[in-house]
């Protein structure tokens, strides 16, 4: 049960232990955090099974791992390793430019990224059990996460006022299955949990995303690319629980050392933006 929790990117067993000690509800095992994927360039792929095994053996909380978009075999391998969730992630280099994985063929649950409601519902119809707003991973800049969360929530709010006939055309415009659109209109939320990701670097960033309606937070480069990962990890966990209590956010924000150096998204060329990957 991940709700209200923080999921942290880790690249080895030692980081996984730090994350668990800090109160993470799960860890994401990957070879390079998004900031390094950006820096190094090249093709980013599924992690080494040895490294995933080691992390599974180290922590008692759930372990997630990333497969490339559309890479059915990577997902099969991760399922065979016994990971708890697969993230079909735009942070890795896509393997298929028009098809996502048919996630219903798997027993392991999937999490997928989305920038708007239509994209989220397409992933859910393919079998995703969890959605995260994409944000722009590896930038330490929360602006895209905010944009995507506000877009998804705004799209949902607009559906609620529509009558039955209008929902048909809404489904057409969203390029999403009608039944899911009706369900969202009735529930006033997604039929699965909605986490947030991409650019969260401070306790205040995490709390902001919770205030905007996220069910929980993924933190990637923000922790282990900062000056004091142990304290920052703890602080982000506490801020996520107490997201509406500025006094707590202030207390946990003190003396954390340097945050990761951020990147301004508007100077980032389109080819280096991850959020546009996925369809």
């Amino acid at each position, binding site marked *: *049960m991940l709700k209200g929790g923080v999921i942290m990117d880790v690249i080895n067993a030692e980081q996984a232990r730090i994350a668990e000690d800090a*109160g993470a*509800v799960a860890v994401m095992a990957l070879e390079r955090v998004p900031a390094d994927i950006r820096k190094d360039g090249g093709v980013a792929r599924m992690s080494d099974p040895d490294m995933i095994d080691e992390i599974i053996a180290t922590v*008692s909380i*759930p372990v997630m791992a990333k497969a490339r978009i559309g890479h059915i075999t990577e997902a099969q391998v991760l399922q065979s390793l016994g990971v708890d969730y697969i993230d079909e992630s735009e942070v890795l280099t896509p393997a298929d430019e028009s098809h996502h994985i048919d996630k219903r063929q798997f027993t392991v*649950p999937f999490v997928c990224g989305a920038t708007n409601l239509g994209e989220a519902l397409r992933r859910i119809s393919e079998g995703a059990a969890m959605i995260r707003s994409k944000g722009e991973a590896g930038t330490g800049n929360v602006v895209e996460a905010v944009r995507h969360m506000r877009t998804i929530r705004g799209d949902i709010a607009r559906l609620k006022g529509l009558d039955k006939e209008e929902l048909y055309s809404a489904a057409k415009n969203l390029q999403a299955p009608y039944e899911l659109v009706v369900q969202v209109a009735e529930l006033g939320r997604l039929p699965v949990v909605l986490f947030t990701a991409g650019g969260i670097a401070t306790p205040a960033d995490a709390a902001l995303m919770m205030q905007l309606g996220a069910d929980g937070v993924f933190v990637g480069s923000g922790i282990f690319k900062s000056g004091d990962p142990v304290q920052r990890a703890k602080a982000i966990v506490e801020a996520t629980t107490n997201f509406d209590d500025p006094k707590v956010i202030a207390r946990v924000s003190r003396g954390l050392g340097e945050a990761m150096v951020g990147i301004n998204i508007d100077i980032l060329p389109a080819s280096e933006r991850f959020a546009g990957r996925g369809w």
Partner: protein
Amino acid sequence: MLRVGVLALQGDFREHVNSLTALNVAVQKVRNPEELKTVNALVIPGGESTTISMLAKRVGLLDPLRKFVKDGFAVYGSCAGMIMLADEILDGRSDQETIGGIDITVRRNAFGRQVDSFETDLALKDFKNNFRAVFIRAPWVERVGSEVEVLATYKTENNQEHPVMVRQGALLATSFHPELTNDNRIHEYFVQMAKSVSRVNS
């Protein structure tokens, strides 16, 4: 008057709030010792027990929670909440602390990893019809003290039978998540329990 707190540090506390609200019970989220003082019954939700335990420790809630149990207030824990109410845990972190109160030994993640999560129809003692029980990386009970009443058990594929719902006095625990279903009978049972021990929190 009964006022039920729901421990809201992490996990599916919102679902518990909804289940209780549907029963017309006054509900209050509890995240710190001050909020605990305003309630006279408590639900501990499903979540990651390591996370809940650590957050409770950090905000200074562990000892007030132990006192709350000792003072005889009704407390119900589902999944991670069962772990928090157990006197002893297996496969937890070495430094993992619980509130305790129920004389049981609980094995964490006993049913396995996320892919081993399942739903089943469970017969509950004193309940007329079966209950649709949702198990997610769930714990089970391996040892039961003499004061503990077993209200439901589950038989695994290799014919091992383990308690998955227990009660000791004013304390109730389930391995599964009734808050994730629309069936409010376990919450109703707990509310009746809480009313019968009805106490004033001073």
